[in-house]
């Protein structure tokens, strides 16, 4: 094993090295989270090491369907993306914003929670997920107001990306130009390489912090052949996309078809259950609930994930603005794929396919967009 040379951006580690990497991050006081098998799925949770990873497992995904299967090898990252995304750590589903207490003298004392304690290390972040985090950064950090708790968790997070070795049935990152290779936004990026009994990871170093962590991990220099082989793996993945979304003029297409009959067609199938928005790694909407106690002395405001599919979401005096299912599905899809561009400068979709896989009735936004493209200009008579 050699030290990393200052000009070296690629090194190679083995499975033991991966364990050392996790150990180094943990010893640095980080909360290490990554993929693990639970409830017959690959979810993101706290991991202790190689034993926590979904070694030898893969996932099979289609619209409204997800199943785990054994792989023929012992790959640690031989799956695509599961029901969870990293947003559950950076933007928790339930978070207390502040508490207030009425003191005996009638004054009010307001307290805010301490700065988040967790310094995360994310293991196994896919290229589409890095893009999703970047999109949420724009929402929470780069607008006129900063979500300070998000910003604190985000700036502390150490990101170990994994380039995808295979695509899933609902993947379309190639269409959205967000993957399958992680090109930025990581501290380290792994490409898993299994050839016979040899199990290696090419590690691309993406930050100075990543470089200093790798100094604690046994590794060897990567040669050109190894780097080329890793590129070939990602290129093969890019050719395997299970879904395709034609983004050419998509914003104008959707914005110009707000009365298309397809919205009623999808409304006939849509459950308005909100699963698509919950699993979406970029959906950022929340609601606040105010609670007061029985003695009317203490109150708190709690923020929870919300969805444009609920009636409360668009409730104003007199009722919900988007009462019909058609209007709610249209709101979600036109925001995600079109109006997001006007609002934030990029699409709100990263092509991860979660909304397709985790829709209980398998509604596929790539198909919905294609259906509108096939018969544009159809309006309600």
């Amino acid at each position, binding site marked *: 094993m050699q030290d990393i040379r200052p000009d070296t951006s690629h090194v190679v580690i083995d499975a033991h090295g991966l364990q050392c990497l996790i150990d180094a991050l943990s010893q640095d006081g980080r909360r290490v989270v990554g993929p693990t098998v639970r409830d017959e799925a690959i979810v993101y949770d706290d991991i202790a090491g190689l034993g926590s990873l979904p070694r030898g497992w893969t996932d099979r995904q289609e619209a409204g369907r997800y199943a785990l299967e054994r792989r023929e090898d012992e790959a640690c990252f031989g799956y695509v993306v599961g*029901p969870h995304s990293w947003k559950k750590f950076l933007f928790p589903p339930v978070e207390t914003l502040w508490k207030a207490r009425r003191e005996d003298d009638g004054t009010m004392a307001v307290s805010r929670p301490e700065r988040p304690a967790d310094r995360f290390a994310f293991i196994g972040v896919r290229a589409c997920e890095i893009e999703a985090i970047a999109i949420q950064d724009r929402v929470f950090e780069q607008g006129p107001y900063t979500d300070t708790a998000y910003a604190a968790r985000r700036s502390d997070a150490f990101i170990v990306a994994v380039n995808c070795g295979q695509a899933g049935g609902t993947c379309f990152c190639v269409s959205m130009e967000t993957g399958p290779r992680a090109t930025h936004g990581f501290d380290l990026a792994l490409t898993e390489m299994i050839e016979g009994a040899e199990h290696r990871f090419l590690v691309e170093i993406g930050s100075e912090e990543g470089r200093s962590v790798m100094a604690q991990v046994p590794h060897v220099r990567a040669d050109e052949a190894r780097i080329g082989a890793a590129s070939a793996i990602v290129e093969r993945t890019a050719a395997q996309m299970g879904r395709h979304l034609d983004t050419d003029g998509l914003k104008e297409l959707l914005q110009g078809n707000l009365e298309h009959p397809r919205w009623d067609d999808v409304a006939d199938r849509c459950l308005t259950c*909100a699963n698509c928005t919950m699993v979406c790694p970029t959906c950022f909407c929340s609601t606040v609930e105010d609670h007061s106690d029985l003695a009317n002395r203490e109150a708190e405001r709690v923020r929870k994930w919300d969805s444009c599919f*609920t009636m409360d979401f668009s409730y104003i005096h007199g009722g919900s603005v988007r009462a019909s299912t058609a209007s709610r599905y249209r709101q979600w899809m036109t925001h995600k794929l079109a109006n997001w561009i006007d609002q934030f400068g990029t699409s709100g979709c990263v092509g991860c396919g979660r909304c397709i896989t985790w829709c209980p009735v398998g509604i596929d936004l790539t198909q919905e967009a294609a259906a509108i493209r096939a018969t544009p200009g159809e309006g309600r008579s």
Partner: protein
Amino acid sequence: MTARPKLAVWKFASCDGCQLSLLDCEDELLAVAGAVEIANFPEASSAIVEGPYDLSLVEGSITTPHDAERILAVRKQSKFLVTIGACATAGGIQALRNFADVKDFVAAVYASPQYIDTLATSTPISAHIPVDYELHGCPINKAQLVEVISAFLAGRKPAVPAHSVCIECKQRGSVCVMVQGTPCLGPVTHAGCGAICPAYRRGCYGCYGPMETPNMPALARGWRELGADGRDIRRALRSFNAWAEPFRKESAAHDD
């Protein structure tokens, strides 16, 4: 100190589980007793203070001519009336009689059916009187009950979302059992339980009744794709909330 609001708890056809949620509040129970005067709650105390009452909690459904009269008197004595549980809000499991002839049940169950004076149907309280607020669930969630009482005392709207169980399921981090092949009523069911069953790898049983905008035919199609037949769908919908209109209507669509 101003007088505490007077609380009454009323029971109609029910199992008592929902009103016992109030006694089950444990840590909050003393706070409840401190915040309101428990004026009429036979499960808790035989001491009964006369009405009118500021807040009435009503459990149970209307199944007898006597109860159909009694609920009118309860309404008259109650400034604010909240129905609690699937019986009071939807007719309960006993509303299964609504799908059959109650005389057959009476004849099958009772040795002397002539003593039974019952109605042909079990109906929710809201079918008989105006109701100010409905708290769903079989049984209700005691945290939501405390929330409703706290909101009443503070003069605010209770934070009791009417969206699907799926949102609670996802907030909890559970994996969707339906996508993994298990039929689940979660997408059409009112939140409130905290998505307990999917967390234990079971499909939702619909204990909290229909959510705000349930798309029943779409869910039924999804169930059939997973191998459920009409009987499975009908039986799943005909439980504690069988007489809630969206569940009733969809279950009838799967009658053989």
